[in-house]
């Protein structure tokens, strides 16, 4: 699956996206969730920790609540959305 980082999240991650194998962060026998993924990307990119605290998250281009136990699939795209500043 794909994780996208924008603005300050991209600066903190040092790259715009990661392609992550679901098996790399799912507990054995458990279907991986959005929460598992967010924990995992913070272990890969330590500097994302403070950013993710204040960011929103999207799943397949729709805002989704953090702390969500929504299950993830290989085709999913998650994005870290720091506080927006369009206009």
């Amino acid at each position, binding site marked *: 699956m794909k994780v996208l980082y*924008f603005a*300050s999240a991209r600066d903190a991650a040092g790259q715009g996206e990661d392609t992550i194998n679901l098996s790399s962060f799912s507990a054995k026998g458990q279907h991986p969730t959005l929460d598992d993924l967010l924990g995992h990307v913070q272990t890969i990119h330590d500097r994302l920790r403070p950013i993710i605290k204040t960011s929103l998250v999207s799943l397949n*281009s729709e805002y989704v609540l953090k702390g969500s136990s929504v299950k993830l699939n290989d085709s999913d795209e998650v994005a870290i*959305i*720091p*506080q927006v*500043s*369009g*206009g």
Partner: protein
Amino acid sequence: MDKNACCNHQHPPGELPKHHENVDESHDHFLISSEPLSLDRACALVRDDAAGAISTFEGTTRSTFNGKGVVRLEYEAYEPMAKKEWLKITQEARSKYLLLSTVMHHRIGEVAVGQTSVIVAASSAHRADAINAVHFLIDSLKARLPIWKKELLDDGTDTWKQNEPVDLDAHRSTTN
């Protein structure tokens, strides 16, 4: 306001100009572009013989921030999601106001001082719907669209900006 009432005269039933209740890309125009934006083009897209009003908002890069000189802004967008959110925002605008056509154009990449970063426009039979819809659309864009700007100052520093929270509940419908 009653949906069949005009501002200063009554239309017979069925003769009110056709306003569209559902978002539809022949009347609602969205663009994210690295090219300069044009207010003339936005107005042309919403112009309609049934319209009595075209309202527009243009956002431009200001030369100072807290007394410091701004060199330019740099914008980026999560484009597929921005388009999905725009559809939702515009549908909400159409459920609140009587609208003929709308435009939301946003520039990405470098935007120098004095240049335009965003244009919102709406046409309606009546000015209140057009003006209030534009206000609702720009406030919703600033609160929800996944677009970011980095501000580069003349002292060599840069910062990712964060929009102030917006109270979208303050936008009442003109038509109820």
